[in-house]
């Protein structure tokens, strides 16, 4: 059964500021799509749109969850999360004064996720053994990489079918960036997730990408349908690296 995400002709912005212009993209079931772009091009805005935190001014936004199609426009964030779209927010946004376990349990706030709480928690600890060791540590006192693990784990606790990851590399050492990216790939494979990842780090991101979109000034400047496409494309170098 399919879990895919489709945007077509999406326009959005903040008040008078028009950020996204006619954005169309698809994340097919079981694939990892990466959204590439440097700062200020609309990556986070796009993610917010999908999550219902910003309402698009035009266009359609649909998600297919377990073969059922849902129109995301007009739904509230919690309804969207409850559908099975999980988010790892930019900059992790943990609850620093709660322990690791409490942060994870918080991911299971929604009724649907609560039913599978035990299983998801075990799964989290299996994926991230480090978190099992540090259950009772305050999340705010952990290192950046560990915090990113908690944020990923917390998103898994919502029992998502589609996982949105917003800039996992923010504030991480290069080696941790590559580990985090690997982990996302691993999670996707073992959990059969559909992943949309917004990222600036081009080289790291395309390692796990099945397809990619380059966003420049709120427009999709290039869409690559396969990993090879992304690797060998001069356009990407031009748009993205400015070469």
């Amino acid at each position: 059964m399919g879990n895919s995400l489709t945007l077509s002709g999406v326009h959005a912005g903040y008040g008078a500021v028009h950020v996204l212009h006619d954005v169309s993209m698809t994340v097919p079931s079981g694939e990892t799509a990466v959204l590439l772009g440097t700062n200020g091009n609309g990556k986070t805005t796009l993610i917010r749109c999908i999550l219902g935190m910003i309402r698009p001014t035009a266009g359609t936004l649909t998600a297919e969850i377990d073969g059922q199609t849902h129109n995301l426009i007009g739904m509230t964030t919690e309804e969207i999360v409850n559908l099975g779209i999980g988010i790892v927010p930019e900059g992790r946004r943990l609850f620093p004064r709660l322990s690791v376990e409490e942060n994870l349990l918080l991911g299971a706030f929604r009724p649907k996720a609560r039913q599978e709480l035990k299983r998801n928690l075990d799964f989290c600890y299996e994926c991230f053994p480090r978190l099992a060791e540090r259950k009772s540590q305050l999340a705010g006192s952990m290192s950046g990489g560990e915090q990113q693990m908690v944020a990923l784990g917390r998103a898994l606790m919502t029992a998502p079918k589609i996982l949105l990851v917003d800039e996992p590399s923010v504030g991480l050492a290069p080696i941790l960036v590559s580990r985090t990216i690997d982990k996302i790939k691993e999670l996707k494979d073992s959990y059969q997730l559909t992943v949309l990842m917004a990222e600036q780090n081009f080289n790291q991101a395309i390692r796990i990408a099945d397809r990619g979109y380059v966003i420049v000034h709120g427009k999709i400047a290039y869409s690559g349908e396969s990993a090879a496409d992304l690797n060998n494309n001069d356009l990407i170098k031009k748009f993205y690296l400015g070469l």
Partner: protein
Amino acid sequence: MKSPVFFLVWIVVAAIVFAFGLYLKNDYFFFAGYTVLQYVVLATGWNILGGYTGYVNFGSAAFFAMGAYASVVMHKVAPLPVPLLIIIGGIVSGLVGLGMGYLTLRLRGAFFAIATLALAVVLQTLIVNWDFVGGSRGAYIIRPNTLDIAGLQIPYIEYLFALMLILAVCALTVARIVERSRLGFGFATIRDDEVAAEACGVPTLRLKLMATTLSGALMGMAGAPFPYYIGYLQPSSAFGLEYAVNSIAMPMIGGTTSWVGPLIGAIVLGTLQQVATVTISSAVNLLIVGLLLTGFVIIAPNGILGLIHKFRGQSDADKVGRRVIRETP
């Protein structure tokens, strides 16, 4: 401790306080005690929105006054016993809270605080221009001297004091239930990081509306018996600055993360103000609040509770909702 047990224990404490008042044979104890208890309810109500959810409400006086004016209206239309008036006041202020929530909760931080301040001004203007409740002249409510309950002549002030005691116990119980429930947990996540809470699927808007309604209702209940206590209600006293300031200062001084905080704050600050009113002057009240608040913000930002935790070597980690999560799996 289970909530019903907690409630009964505090009812016993309340009975002891009341018995102590009777033993003193001093009406002033009841007059002063009523004000302190009223602040316990007001501070507890404020704390549900301000402390647990982190939305600072500067319009407490408006909720208090709406409760009081609901009683004035009822008094003119169809006089009811005060316990019923308390419920009506709670409903009216709860609705005002819900409305305020719908209007303002998309605002955050300082903007929300400013909006609540404006709400108080708007409502005060409405009341001032509403002749039915006396407008700016105010309204008289002549209360009987005694109340006849089962043949016993009970002085009216003792009756009001007893009602306020029960109301305070109810408010504390409600606050404690909220604090230890999934609801309180949701409130705490909103306070810590609203965006992250939404990303986890916490229905933030709905929870915030519940917080404003509950908080407003409790503050309205605190105000409902007020016209009977004071005898003459005018807008400038019902919307008085001291209600807005005290209902913020008391939880801040006591500690905002637990039901105990507003209780401690209200008793300490309320008693101090009563003492100052008798010994110095009533005008010195706000000065005391200001000085204490400034002192606490500098010395003990987590209030008296924070200080206690510090001396016992516990972390200041807040308690709201944490019990629930630990018990969930």
